[in-house]
C-alpha cells in the first residue's frame, strides 16, 4: 500500500512539471503586459522597460522558464507583482476556503445524488425517474455562474435565507456562508453522479446476489442498502472522482460569483493584473489538488472494493 502511494506521488512530479510549462506559456499568451498593469496606462516606455527588466521579463522566454524552475526547486515561488508579497504566503492563505468549498460541495453532491440515484434506479421508467432525468439534464446544462445567480436571487435576495457573498470568521459562519456556493458547484456534479448511480444500481439490483440476499429473508431495505447500493456506489464514486477537475473548475467561477476569498478568486484577479507569479502558483496548486484528489479517490476505491485491492497494490 505504502509503495503504491509513493509510486503515485512520484508520478505527480512529471505531471506538475507539465503543468508549470503549460501555465508558464499560457500566462504569457494573455494579451497585455504586467508592466502596463502595474504602472497604469500613462506609464512612459522608459519606466515600462525598467519594470520589465526588474521582473526579469526582458529575457528570452526559455531563460525565463529555466529561472522559474530553478526558483521552484529552491522552494521560491516568487513575489506577487500586484501584492508585493511572497506568492507562497498569498496562496496558502487562499487554500483553505477553496478546499473547504471543494469538500463541502462534494458532500452536498453525494447528499443529493445518492437518494436521487436510488429513487431513479428503483423507479426506473416511472414518473420519478423521468422527472429526475429532466432535472439532472438541466442541472448539467446550466452553467454554474448562472445557477449561482439564480440561487442568490431566490434564496438570498427574495427569501433572505443565506448571505449573498462572503466567507466569515468562525467555522459555523463559514459553513453557513459557503452553503450557497457549495450547492451551486454541487448542482453541476450531482447529476453526473446520480446518473452513474442509476445505471450501476439498476444493474446491481438485477444481479444474482440480490436473489441470494432476498432468499435469505432480508427486508427490501437491507437488500437495497447493504447489498445493491454497497456494490453500485463504487462506479458512482468513480464518476465523482473523474469529475473532480470539473468541480475544481466550477469552484473558480463560483468563488468569483460569491466573493469567496479562495484560490479561484485570486486566480481571476491575478489574471486581471497580469500577476504572472501568482497565476502560475495558483494554477500549479489547482493541478496538485486535482491530482491529489484523484489519488485519494483511487485509494478510496481500493479500500471499498476487495476485487481491486489485491491487484492494484500487489
Amino acid at each position, binding site marked *: 500500500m505504502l509503495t503504491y502511494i509513493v509510486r503515485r506521488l512520484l508520478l505527480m512530479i512529471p505531471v506538475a512539471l507539465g503543468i508549470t510549462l503549460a501555465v508558464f506559456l499560457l500566462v504569457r499568451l494573455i494579451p497585455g503586459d504586467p508592466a502596463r498593469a502595474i504602472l497604469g496606462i500613462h506609464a512612459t516606455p522608459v519606466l515600462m522597460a525598467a519594470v520589465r527588466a526588474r521582473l526579469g521579463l526582458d529575457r528570452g522566454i526559455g531563460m525565463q522558464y529555466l529561472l522559474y524552475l530553478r526558483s521552484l526547486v529552491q522552494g521560491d515561488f516568487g513575489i506577487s507583482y500586484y501584492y508585493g508579497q511572497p506568492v507562497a504566503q498569498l496562496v496558502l492563505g487562499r487554500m483553505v476556503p477553496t478546499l473547504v468549498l471543494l469538500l463541502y460541495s462534494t458532500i452536498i453532491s453525494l447528499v443529493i445524488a445518492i437518494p436521487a440515484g436510488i429513487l431513479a434506479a428503483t423507479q426506473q421508467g416511472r414518473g420519478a425517474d423521468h422527472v429526475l432525468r429532466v432535472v439532472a439534464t438541466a442541472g448539467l446544462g446550466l452553467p454554474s455562474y448562472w445557477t449561482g445567480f439564480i440561487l442568490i436571487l431566490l434564496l438570498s435576495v427574495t427569501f433572505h435565507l443565506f448571505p449573498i457573498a462572503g466567507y466569515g470568521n468562525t467555522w459555523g459562519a463559514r459553513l453557513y456562508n459557503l452553503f450557497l456556493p457549495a450547492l451551486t458547484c454541487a448542482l453541476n456534479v450531482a447529476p453526473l453522479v446520480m446518473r452513474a448511480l442509476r445505471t450501476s444500481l439498476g444493474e446491481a439490483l438485477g444481479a444474482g*446476489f440480490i436473489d441470494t440476499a432476498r432468499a435469505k429473508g432480508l427486508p427490501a431495505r437491507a437488500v437495497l442498502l*447493504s447489498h445493491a447500493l454497497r456494490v453500485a456506489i463504487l462506479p458512482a464514486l468513480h464518476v465523482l472522482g473523474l469529475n473532480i477537475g470539473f468541480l475544481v473548475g466550477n469552484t473558480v467561477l463560483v468563488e468569483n460569483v460569491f466573493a469567496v476569498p479562495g484560490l479561484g478568486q485570486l486566480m481571476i484577479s491575478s489574471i486581471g493584473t497580469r500577476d504572472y507569479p501568482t497565476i502560475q502558483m495558483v494554477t500549479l496548486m489547482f493541478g496538485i489538488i486535482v491530482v491529489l484528489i484523484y489519488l485519494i479517490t483511487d485509494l478510496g476505491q481500493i479500500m471499498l472494493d476487495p*476485487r481491486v485491492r489485491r491487484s492494484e497494490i500487489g
Partner: protein
Amino acid sequence: MVDLLTVDHLGIGIPRGSNTVALVEDVSFTVRAGESYGIVGESGCGKSTTIRAIIRLLTGKARITRGAVRFDGVDLAQAKESALQSIRGAGIGMVFQDPLTALNPVLTVGRQIAEGLRYHGQLSAADRHARMLEAMRLVGLPDPARIAASYPHELSGGQRQRAAIAIALIASPRLLLADEPTTALDVTIQAQILRLLSDLRSRLGMALVLVTHDLGVVAQTCDRVAVMYSGRIVEEAPIRRIFENPRHPYTVALLNSIPRGSRAGHPLHPIAGMPPDPAHRPSGCSFAARCPNRQTDCEAVAPGWTPDAGGGGFACFHPARAHAEVPHG
C-alpha cells in the same frame, strides 16, 4: 411422511400487451418432509420459473397467475411480502446456479453467511458468529475462520457453492430449493456438491427440491422426479420407475440422451428440435413436433393427466408401454 410443500395448479405468466404469456401452466406436485424431489427438463422448460415462484422470487415481470403454493399451512402464492420474508431462509432456503454471481463481490463470505440470522431469531452477534463457523464446517469448507474473512473472488467455484449452501442453510430451513446447483461447476466438483446436498438432507432431515437438466444427477440424488416440458409437468414418478419404465416419450428421449455409463449399451440420442417458444405453443401436445409416437389426435388437444398406480403419472395419449413387472411404490 407429511406433506411439506404442495404446489397446486400453479400458473405463471408474463404480461405482453393486453395478454399474458404463460411460462408455466397447471403445475402440481407435493414434496414430503425430508424427501428429495427432482425437477428435470431441457433448458427453457420452466424449471427455474417454477421453483422461484415457490419463494416468490420470480424474475422480471413474471407473475403467478393461478394456483397455490402451500407451505406450513400458508399459501405463499397469496402471502404478503412480510410473511414471505419470515419464510425465506428460515422455512425455505434456496441455492442458485452460478455461485459466482450468487455471492456479493464486496462483502466477506462470513458476513454473507451469518447475515440471514440477523433477521431470523434473536441470536447475539457472538452466537451468530459461532453458528456461521458451524455452518461452514457443515458444508465442508476448510479453515472456516480464514474463509469467513475472504471475499468470493478468492474462493474456488466449489468453495463458493459450498458457501452459497451455507447461506441457504444457516437459518435451518425445512426445505432447500436448489436450482441447477452444479451446472456451473467442474465435473469432479459437481459430484462433491451433489453428495454434500444428499448428505446434508439426511443429516438435517430437510427436504430438497433439486432442479436440473441432467437425469443422471436426479438418479444419484432424488426419491421422486417430475419431468417438465414446455412449462408443464409431463411425467412424475418415483425415481426407479422413471429409469425402468418411462412412459412419456419426452422422458424416454431424455433418458436416451444421457451421456453416461449408467445407460451403457444405449446409443446417445440428443433430442432433435427445440421446445416451443412459450408465446407460440401449439394448441395440442407441445411435444408433438418432436415426438416419435405422435398421431393425429395429439395435435388437436393437449393430453390430460393419467395417474399411475405406483404414484405419479404422465400426460400423453400414446405413452411408452407399461412394464408389468415394475414394482409399485
